[in-house]
């Protein structure tokens, strides 16, 4: 099995014809190093939320791949994403998590940068540099592209990458499910204060593929199903709708984004939910009715776990969160989990949901705890030379995806597997690793933008 060199990933390590993927892509340090270049330095990565930096001078220190970056709003109000590293000798210019500032000053030699990234302060500029240093060349390194979409901020180090919305493609409507209000109004998501950050001893792709749509692992959450953690104190969740909905996998093949989603029957009426809290029940009843009145196909979609390539997980229903799986070496992942509520929801509703989010998700989340145990020891038990000889199987549902899926008048994009009877498939994981292999093989974004060659109209539509 080939593990060195940029070529050979698809036949050697990611075999989509048989649905077999080598353990090497999870545990091999050389592949990890190459992944940093080929995947993370070229992909659109989630950086943060505009509500974290409402005022000029506000900043939030985030990560892109292994690197620390600063999301900030300059004095003129423009949003930037900078590499958090002094151009002179590399020291972090900001070691706070967030705050407000007029400058980012390096503690090492005192170089100082404005919130627009410009190098403004160089100690002994006249005396030691004899005024010869070209300050304009030595500002903070800024990302090649940045995009703010409905409050979320995304960035990319590669100037040749397509614009964010084209990168997102037809997955946009699934991201909208989390960023729009529960009542269907655009961009109503409000970020709750505090980002959960913690370490998991596993490769970042374990959580990435899980959130791509692993509906097969429900058994691992049996204990929480038994004791109940849901909004009504039962099971894990609280949606009668799911009993009448179609449960689907949707995979956008040339983008590498994929999700579980539920489609409600045409003309479906809201069902009672959150029954142990009248105020919360009333809020969601109101929202469900409102969103059914709004034009647009999303009123029949109920969001579920999904993944935007490479490392952003979304959970558009409750608990409503975005999670970033930051790689930290081949064998460790630093998770950052962001939680959202509707901006205009009553305080009691926000509080109710917040309580639910905390007991469900994150390191103290009664559900997510068991996931991390699985990822931890799946990774650990795949590191040995013998274990590495044996690939994982991803053949579940191979050949059962359809295109142009339609149910009761609702047409869905991409490749779709109906899980209503099947329960599970590995179409989303195959989709993730197909895209991953393409990134590992391609030398440029030109090769990766297959849709511009195959279907020019789609690229235009995405804009």
């Amino acid at each position, binding site marked *: 099995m080939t593990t060195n060199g940029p070529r050979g990933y698809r036949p050697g390590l990611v075999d989509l014809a048989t649905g077999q993927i080598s353990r090497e892509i999870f545990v091999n340090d050389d592949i990890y190093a190459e992944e940093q270049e080929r995947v993370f330095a070229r992909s659109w990565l989630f950086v943060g939320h505009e509500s974290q930096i409402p005022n000029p001078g506000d900043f939030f220190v985030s990560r892109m791949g292994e690197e620390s970056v600063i999301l900030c709003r300059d004095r003129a109000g423009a949003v930037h994403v900078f590499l958090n590293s002094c151009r002179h000798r590399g020291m972090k210019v900001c070691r706070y998590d967030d705050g407000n*500032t*007029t*400058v980012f*000053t390096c*503690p090492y030699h*005192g170089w*100082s940068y404005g919130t627009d990234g410009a190098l*403004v*302060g160089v*100690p*002994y500029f006249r005396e030691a540099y004899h005024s010869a240093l070209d300050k304009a060349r030595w500002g903070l390194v800024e990302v090649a592209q940045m995009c703010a979409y409905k409050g979320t901020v995304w960035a990319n180090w590669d100037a040749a990458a397509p614009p964010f919305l084209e990168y997102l493609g037809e997955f946009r409507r699934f991201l909208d499910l989390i960023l729009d209000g529960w009542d269907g109004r655009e961009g109503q998501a409000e970020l709750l204060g505090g980002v959960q950050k913690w370490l998991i001893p596993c490769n970042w792709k374990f959580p990435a593929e899980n959130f791509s749509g692993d509906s097969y692992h429900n058994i691992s959450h049996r204990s929480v199903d038994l004791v109940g953690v849901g909004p009504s104190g039962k099971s894990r969740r609280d949606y009668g709708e799911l009993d009448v909905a179609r449960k689907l996998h949707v995979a956008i093949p040339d983008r590498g984004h994929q999700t579980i989603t539920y489609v409600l029957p045409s003309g479906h009426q809201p069902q009672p939910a959150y029954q142990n809290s009248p105020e919360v029940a009333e809020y969601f009843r109101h929202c469900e009715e409102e969103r059914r009145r709004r034009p647009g196909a999303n009123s029949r979609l109920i969001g579920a776990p999904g993944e935007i390539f490479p490392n952003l997980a979304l959970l558009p229903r409750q608990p409503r969160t975005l999670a970033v799986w930051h790689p930290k070496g081949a064998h460790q992942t630093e998770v950052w989990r962001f939680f959202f509520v509707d901006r205009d929801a009553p305080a009691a509703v926000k509080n109710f949901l917040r309580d639910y989010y905390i007991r469900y998700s994150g390191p103290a989340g009664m559900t997510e705890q068991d996931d991390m145990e699985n990822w931890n020891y799946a990774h650990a038990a795949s590191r040995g030379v013998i274990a590495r000889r044996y690939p994982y199987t991803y053949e579940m549902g191979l050949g059962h995806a359809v295109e142009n899926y339609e149910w009761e008048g609702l047409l869905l994009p991409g490749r779709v597997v109906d899980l209503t009877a099947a329960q599970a498939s590995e179409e989303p994981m195959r989709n993730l690793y197909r895209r991953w292999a393409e990134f590992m093989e391609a030398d440029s974004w030109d090769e990766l933008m297959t849709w511009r060659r195959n279907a020019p109209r789609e690229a235009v539509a995405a804009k």
Partner: protein
Amino acid sequence: MSGPINIRDLAVGARVVLGSGAEAEIVSNPNDGVWLFARYLASPRDPALVGQEDMIFAQDVVEVRP
């Protein structure tokens, strides 16, 4: 010669004396302990600086006027 001065929390309007003998008034303080934004009030060595704004490095500040 006094010891090092912590400029981090000096107020806008405060006057500082620099090693060059110049005197400047703080127009804003980024509170980073390294830099001040100040306007020259006097500059015996280079009178052209008077009235100009500049970034003042902490190590250049030798005195804060009472």
